[in-house]
């Protein structure tokens, strides 16, 4: 079945991103298709490549990047939410006159329409948040 996922909280502060990851991985391993994972609200903070979690803890960001690579997963970060919170890719940094960007591999920045499209295209949409 074709599933869509929305993640509304950032890494570490709340379990939402962990739950979404564990759910997504289980769905993929069962052979389901994940149409898209959409990161909204503080969820956009899952997409920063600048995290340095403690050695003995999970790396939330890398886990998403690796899952994306393994399954060709579409990880979309909401542009409006990302701008508010300081999550930029190279283009966005340039466009907004910022001297750095921080997006991690496997994530792309796009509009809210991508969430609606996920709602339309996926057979089920699951929201993970606080």
């Amino acid at each position: 079945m074709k599933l869509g996922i929305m993640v509304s909280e950032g890494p570490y502060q709340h379990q939402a991103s962990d739950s979404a990851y564990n759910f997504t991985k289980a769905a993929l391993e069962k052979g389901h298709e994940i149409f898209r994972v959409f990161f909204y609200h503080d969820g956009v903070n899952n997409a920063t490549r600048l995290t340095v979690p403690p050695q003995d803890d999970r790396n939330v960001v890398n886990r998403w990047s690796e899952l994306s690579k393994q399954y060709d997963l579409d990880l979309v970060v909401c542009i409006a939410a990302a701008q508010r919170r300081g999550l930029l890719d190279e283009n966005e940094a340039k466009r907004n006159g910022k001297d750095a960007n921080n997006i991690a591999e496997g994530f792309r920045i796009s509009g809210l329409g991508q969430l609606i499209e996920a709602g339309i295209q996926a057979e089920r949409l699951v929201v993970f948040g606080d």
Partner: protein
Amino acid sequence: MTLHTVNKSPFEANSLETCLRLARSGHSVLLFEDGVYAASKGTKFEAMLIKAMQNCKVHVLLPDFEARGMKTENLIAGVNTVDYAGFVDLVTESERVQSWL
């Protein structure tokens, strides 16, 4: 059939209460993250959950329950346990998922 997911402790937030008010007969409720506390025996919400189970099927995400120091013997009788794969099955078997954040 709707799958309702509740990730908040019933002690901390009103999500479970509203969920149970608006869930219809035959629906499923999945308790996960801090929501799993509602599935444990002996809390002041036990009666509320048992009453809800007359109409709804209640599931608990066992990994979250165990993380919080509880075992299946601490579960209210009749609560079904699932792992993440079982969570996925609940989603695909339902017509829609409603998250009570």
